[in-house]
């Protein structure tokens, strides 16, 4: 399929006046932003601010009712299947199949993304080595501790080498040490050119992002590097920045 819209290859995500209405309710209200290749982009907002809806549109799972968006060069309104092929996704809620073994999960996801058997086999060996997971290879994913599971889920989400990976609260409930190891995996992925789009409720993690946006009532109220945001809001931490912005929310949904 031809790419129908011109895009700058350094911008992996482009949103222009992106909007999603449910009836009269504007879940996402005219948001515009760009994400550069290899960037870690933090997508913050209170519960109900519209993050999930925006993320679903960017993943090709929900069609915008207004504006447009390009992900990996594909139109999120018209080329949803191509979008899905070019991205990775993981969340706290859905990551891997508990009743499949570690290697079976990897093979399943690699297969879904159309990878060749030989490539899957070779990359699985490599992954087991990097994660120091050799002795877990034949274990059911359900029997692994949550921290292991989340690290594996992230590795599986970028197994097919997507241009961008969407992470929806990937570290919720994970112990503090594993949470930090998880972020080291994220850094490693970006060093290989993978772009990371991540939501989190841990404000210390917002500091690890190159740039951060904060959504309030469907709109992006602030977007900059953590350093600049702290300066702009005269705050000592991203938590303070977030508290200042999110308290402005008018939606009853809190």
């Amino acid at each position, binding site marked *: 399929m031809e790419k129908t819209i011109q895009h700058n290859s350094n911008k992996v995500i482009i949103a222009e006046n992106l909007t999603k209405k449910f009836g009269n309710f504007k879940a996402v209200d005219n948001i515009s932003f760009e994400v550069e290749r290899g960037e870690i982009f933090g997508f913050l907002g*209170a519960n*109900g601010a519209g993050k999930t809806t925006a993320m679903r549109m960017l993943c090709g799972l929900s069609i915008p009712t207004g504006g447009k968006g390009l992900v990996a060069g594909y139109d999120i309104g018209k080329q949803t299947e191509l979008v899905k092929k070019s991205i990775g996704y993981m969340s706290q809620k859905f990551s891997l199949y508990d009743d499949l073994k570690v290697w079976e999960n990897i093979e399943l996801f690699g297969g879904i993304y159309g990878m060749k058997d030989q490539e899957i086999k070779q990359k699985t060996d490599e992954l087991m080595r990097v994660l120091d997971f050799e002795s877990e290879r034949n274990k059911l994913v359900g029997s692994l501790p949550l921290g292991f599971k989340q690290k594996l889920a992230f590795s599986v989400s970028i197994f097919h080498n997507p241009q961008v990976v969407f992470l929806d609260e990937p570290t919720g*409930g*994970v112990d*503090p040490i594993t949470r930090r190891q998880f972020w080291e995996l994220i850094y490693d992925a970006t060093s290989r050119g993978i772009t990371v789009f991540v939501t989190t409720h841990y404000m*210390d993690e917002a500091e690890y992002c190159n740039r951060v946006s904060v959504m309030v009532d469907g709109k992006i109220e602030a977007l900059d590097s953590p350093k600049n945001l702290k300066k702009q809001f005269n705050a000592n931490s991203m938590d303070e920045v977030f508290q200042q912005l999110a308290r402005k929310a008018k939606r009853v949904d809190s």
Partner: protein
Amino acid sequence: MDKQNIQSESAISCKSINKKYDTIEALKGVSFEVERGEIFGIIGPDGAGKTTLFRILTTLILADSGTASVDGFDVVTDYKEIRKRVGYMPGKFSLYQDLTVEENLNFFATVFNTTIEENYELIKDIYQQIEPFKNRRAGKLSGGMKQKLALSCALIHKPSVLFLDEPTTGVDPVSRKEFWGMLKNLKAQGITILVSTPYMDEAGLCDRIALIQNGQFLKIDTPKNIVNQYENKLWAVQSDNMYKLLNDLRANELTSNCFAFGDKHHVSVSSEQLSINNLKETLDKLGHTNIEIREIEPTIEDCFMQLSQK
């Protein structure tokens, strides 16, 4: 409460509780006491055993060994008494999705032989926030509103002990602060609260906490005492290249460990040989620029990481 058991001073008492699921040891010899009127936090990651402990104390499952009492009543022999006098908000939303807000609240009031009116004062501050939606089905509420309804339902019979299993998981930082404000108000009304959370920054809002990992308590104390017992010096370090800095700090033989903490790295230092100036010089030689190092007070998360690595 008419039938208070005066033998026990504690609101909750646990002695050597063990629980196994097949081969997995969910709780390994857990003992602790919660005093009346305390907010007691069980703090630890998913899978540490928090929910198992809550289920044993709310008489939903039996421990393999050990004893426990709630409000002076034994969790095995007096389970019916306990059920009358505790409120329980499970981690998973467990109200009737196809009943309205008001119907849910009415249901729970009726089950406990009371009415909304009788105990309205207790839930007023919380319930008023969702009262405009009292005719909406519970399943159609947002996360924050569900949480408020669940808390109202857990309180409607004026329990003496309130069990809250991860009430703030997945909730944004602003709503989390609000929620803890509500707990403070409940404490002021004399309700004992046992609350679990994976968010270490919530520890400071409890009177006392237990840090839990792999079915064991690492420590039980006030948040302040736990911080005071941190064993090493702790420095916050910054430079222009934070990723390189992390690796360089870890490679330094005189540091015990180093973790990223927001825009700084926290370095734990046990050696007397290393001073802030020494480290600055070393980092300078490694090519770091704009180096800043200062001694800081540990957070509960620093303490948890130190204790969990022992």
